[in-house]
């Protein structure tokens, strides 16, 4: 097959000028695009406002699809529940009877716990919890790892707030729009989290690799202290994340670097919890609480190297 006809117009001046102008516009536009990227080097969240409109518009679509997906994925569970419904019903009723006593006991324990805490003047950590929302979509075609959360500025979400699931840390808020916000996932290559080993507080830093795993570097010089199977939790250094949120489990060691897998998988968790920044949560409460929470941390850091 011969090549397609040339786009070059013949002797028609007007058509020639129009083609020339289109190239000028394209070149200028490309230069403007490059300029926008250069601006973004210095101010990565500067143009977030441009995204506000579209993320607000696409929110219902993503949310609806998300609901549909979770509906479809649980349909086998619903069908299985109909199978042997009668005997299951009897068994469940017995279970409820047995659990009721336990709940009453637990309530008493919780009351006692609250009373003892009051005596010790401890802060209740529940104050840091802001809201629960769902992740509705993500930057699946880009090499950055962002997820979109179905809650935004109007719900009180602010950039920098940590996001976690019951299983562990998910990431932190990057930008917010009125009703949605972008979460910088734990696995993004720019997300650096100060962590420590749960067993003996060896401090380390986790950096995302962008492919669902984490690179863990020990802060102590010398031999790599980690071994596969170690559980890592946040250390609370830096003031963003609460201490003791589970982060990752070490799976592989290569020289100085350990590789870990996050404990919470953002594609599987149903809902995530947005928390207040640790610093904010501490300073908001009584001043006596601050040193209390930070003390074991400092001790852990000092003894580790």
């Amino acid at each position: 097959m011969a090549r397609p006809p040339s786009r070059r117009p013949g002797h028609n001046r007007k058509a020639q000028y129009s083609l020339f102008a289109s190239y000028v516009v394209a070149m200028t536009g490309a230069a403007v695009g490059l300029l926008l990227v250069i601006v973004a080097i210095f101010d990565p969240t500067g143009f977030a406002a441009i995204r506000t409109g579209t993320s607000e518009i696409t929110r219902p679509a993503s949310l609806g699809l998300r609901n549909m997906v979770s509906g479809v994925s649980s349909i086998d569970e619903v069908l299985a529940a109909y199978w042997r419904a009668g005997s299951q019903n009897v068994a469940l009723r017995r279970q409820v009877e047995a659990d009721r006593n336990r709940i009453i006991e637990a309530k008493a324990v919780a009351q006692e716990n609250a009373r003892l805490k009051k005596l010790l003047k401890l802060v209740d950590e529940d104050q840091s919890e802001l809201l629960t929302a769902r992740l509705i979509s993500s930057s699946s075609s880009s090499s950055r790892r962002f997820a979109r959360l179905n809650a935004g500025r109007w719900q009180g979400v602010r950039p920098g707030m940590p996001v976690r699931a019951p299983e562990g840390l998910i990431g932190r808020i990057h930008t917010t729009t009125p009703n949605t916000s972008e979460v910088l996932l734990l696995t993004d290559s720019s997300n650096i989290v100060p962590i420590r080993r749960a067993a003996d507080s060896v401090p380390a830093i986790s950096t995302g690799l962008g492919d669902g795993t984490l690179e863990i570097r020990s802060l102590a010089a010398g031999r790599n202290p980690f071994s596969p199977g170690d559980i890592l939790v946040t250390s609370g250094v830096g003031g963003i994340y609460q201490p003791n949120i589970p982060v990752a489990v070490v799976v592989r060691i290569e020289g100085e670097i350990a590789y870990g897998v996050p404990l919470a998988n953002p594609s599987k968790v149903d809902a995530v919890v947005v928390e207040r920044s640790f610093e904010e949560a501490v300073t908001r409460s009584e001043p006596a609480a601050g040193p209390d929470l930070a003390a074991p941390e400092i001790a852990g850091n000092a003894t580790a190297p």
Partner: protein
Amino acid sequence: MIDPHLPYVSRLGRHPSRFRLIGTPIITVMLGSAITILPVIAQAPVMPPFGLLLLLTWRLLRPELWRTWIGLPLGLFDDIMSGQPIGSAMFLWTVTLIGIDAVEHRMLWRSYRQDWLIAAAAIIFCVAGGVFFARITGGGDINPQLVAPQMVWTILLFPFVVRQCARVDRWRVMA
């Protein structure tokens, strides 16, 4: 020309509307970019850039359809949807379209395979450029190998997208 197996055939004296002729390609590319609103929370860059694929397909199927500046508005929309820094696809897509214009004059023969070759080069350029831009705008140390699978299956997906796009094109020009 009139084949009874075709679902759409042009009828005498009827023309497709202007909106259908001009709007269809633009809307399909925007839908391709909007694939990120699917509720998939990806752990790695796995989704092929459908916006780019459709842009290349339309450009190679219908060279006379667009001027090169179309990469600017469509690229801006893609940047907004994709999570890349704003300006990244605007620059890369426009440069790609200008590059295709420049290459097209120099090729003596053109067939489907040359189209695929051009598209493959364009996909590698755009994906690698996207990684570079994500890196310099605070993305940290992104390993270029990370996007290699994405590049491969985007290139392999091109023939499929061309066929679907040709089907849409037939519907577009036949009223």
